[in-house]
């Protein structure tokens, strides 16, 4: 596969995209960077990206924890979203924060994906 045409991206993408358009690879690089920054941020324990079926596609935690978080939070987010939308169909869920004694779980749903970040805010 061809290397990405943008000079700012130093490493090659692991997935092969034949006929990649420059916009897509630039966007991907940006997102990758953002996710890396989030992971490197103070207090962040882990990040998980979950797809629409509840299957985690990216994670920085171990497998069993990831699967557990993904499954449970996926259901909770669906419930929260349907609650918000039932009250007003023009409204939509932006994010969900669950603060517990030990840490805080932040869930940001997107159209097809779910981004979960676990942070310890007191560190």
């Amino acid at each position, binding site marked *: 596969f061809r290397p990405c045409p943008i000079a700012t991206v130093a490493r090659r993408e692991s997935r092969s995209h034949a006929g990649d358009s420059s916009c*897509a690879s630039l966007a991907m690089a940006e997102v990758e960077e953002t996710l890396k920054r989030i992971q490197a941020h103070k207090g962040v324990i882990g990040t998980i990206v979950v797809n629409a079926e509840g299957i985690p596609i990216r994670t920085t935690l171990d497998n069993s924890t990831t699967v557990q978080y993904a499954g449970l939070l996926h259901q909770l987010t669906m419930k929260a979203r349907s609650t918000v939308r039932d009250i007003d169909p023009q409204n939509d869920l932006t994010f969900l924060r669950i603060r517990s004694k030990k840490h805080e779980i932040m869930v940001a749903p997107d159209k097809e994906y779910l981004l979960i970040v676990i942070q310890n805010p007191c560190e």
Partner: protein
Amino acid sequence: MITCSVHSLCGILLPGVIRTPNKGINQQELNASTEVGEGADEWTLSKTLLKPPDQLELTEAELKEEVTRILTANNPHAPQNIVRYSFKERAYKPISFVDQLAIHFSLDGNLLLRDSDEGRRQSARIDLAPVASTVIEVEETEVKEEGSKEDIPAASAEEAAEGEEPPSHSMKEQKLTNQFNFCERASQTFNNPVRERACQMEPPPRATFSATANQWEIYDAYVEELHKLEKSKEKEKQKPLVAKKEDKLRGRKLTSLESQSDDVTKVTKAAKIVERMVNQNTFDDIAQDFKYFEDPADEYRDQEGTLLPLWKFQYDKAKRLAVTAICWNPKYKDLFAVGHGSYDFMKQSRGMLLLYTMKNPSFPEYIFSSESGIMCLDIHNDHPYLLVVGYYDGNVAIYNLKKSHSQPGYKSSAKSGKHTDPVWQVKWQKDDLDNNLNFFSISSDGRIVSWTLVKNELVHSDVIRLSVEGTTLEGPEGLQLQTIGCGTSFDFHKKIDSLFLIGTEEGKIYKCSKSYSSQFLDTFDAHHMAVDAVSWNPYHMKVFISCSSDWTVKIWDHTIKTPMFIFDLNSAVGDVAWAPYSSTIFAAVTTDGKAHVFDLSINKYEAICSQPVVAKKKNKITHVQFNPIYPIIIIGDDRGHVTCLKLSPNLRKMPKEKKGQEIQKGPEVEIAKLDKLLNLVREPANKPAK
């Protein structure tokens, strides 16, 4: 048997409906009844005397005759005079007693006694009863002691103690077999093997489908429909365009790419939100301070205020570059742009343009880098995504935030009239008559240039050429050489569009108009060193402020040649800015790392807040800007850091309302406030002049 005979008598009283076996009478009487009235209330009608036509005509006496009737149990059909021949008397004699039994109905049942011959035969055939029958038969043999045929085989069956079959076989007619020479011969046909043949079709493809029909699902469906309609309308409009084909191809490519893999790019928005959330958690206390903290000590310090440090913005790659310009976005009040470059003549390197948001203090939202240091920038009021930037090498460029390129959309060049010296300030103007974007730039090469974006190109036109007055030199061939003045800052009047001020390196401030290109309307001998910033007061139309490296900040009335107020800050003043919420408050920053906030209505001679705001002493503060709505200021220093500070309540004092009076708000109040102050100052200043 009871027999009754009924004799019909004379005329009978008939109600409307009659039921008699005589059909003929029925018909007539029915017809008669219909004549009389409807069926429902026939009985209510008066009882009319109806005579059947063949009724016997009897006389009165006969009618009254009483007839007795006797009920007997005699069978009327039984003969009463049966005779029988009696052989004894050799004559027929009547029988005295005749049988009166009349059988009206007889039905033969089909129940059989089980023990009767027929019953036994039937039960044997059914084969259910044999066990019972054997038991019964055993009883029978004991009871009856009969030597019938059935008993022997039954007893033998009992002895054999087998199942039901032998007795049933023996119950059937026995086969007479030859006792001596008999062999059973039987043959069986070959049973064809049974082969199962079945044919099964492929079941039709099935998929389980489940969905919920919520209010929002319905809403989503409608919105999608709307989008589709809009798109189809657009496509219809753009059919003749060839470019559409390219778009379609690109669109197809992108869609095929997206469907191929679990694209992480779709998480962009969510990732951004989460990053901000994570930052909010980390900087939670600062965010709370920003929103809610009001220094309580300000109640006791009447004439002083403080600046509370909030966030500090910095970017790795801009660490060694000084902040040369900062500007708040007019639309998104939490977004600001920072230009990086270098003020040092000897050390010139690249430049950066970063846009930060207060919601994410750890990383800039937009990053642009350039080869030359950025010296100034401005954001368009109506198009908050357009930034104009002036470089150290004299170029100007326009960046479009909506596009994802890291390069400016339009850039000037040596051909298109770039400045020959660093551009110190750029400012957007209102769109010109053709609705083209328009901005001004000022540079040390003495030119003030108006740039217009015409059909994707920057077109320049010199507005004014600065020259230092009184320094015309005689050149070698009698030419008049004019020393070119160096412009360092300018500011346009808020209301009078064509009026603007220019600050120069010589320390003079010129009041100019866009319409007069060669002459200045007025000149002020402002400072001894270069004028770093000039700024009109946001409320008062006549007042402006200027600051310079000669350690002073001066406030002027543009009709008067001498300054109204002069403030000495003990160090070169980098920048000065008016507060957007009050006409008497302004902030100034100096190269010794201090920020000064003045409120003329409280203290005309001193700052009400003088606070060092940067960590290291050698750090010079280069720029300051007030946020349009929040009570914060941002300060840029020459290490590349931007610090955000909150103004304490004393620094934001509004004029006190007197009891009973309405709270007056609005620019008029501010203007009046400043006027009052100016009048105090003006008169003593005017007196010596007189």
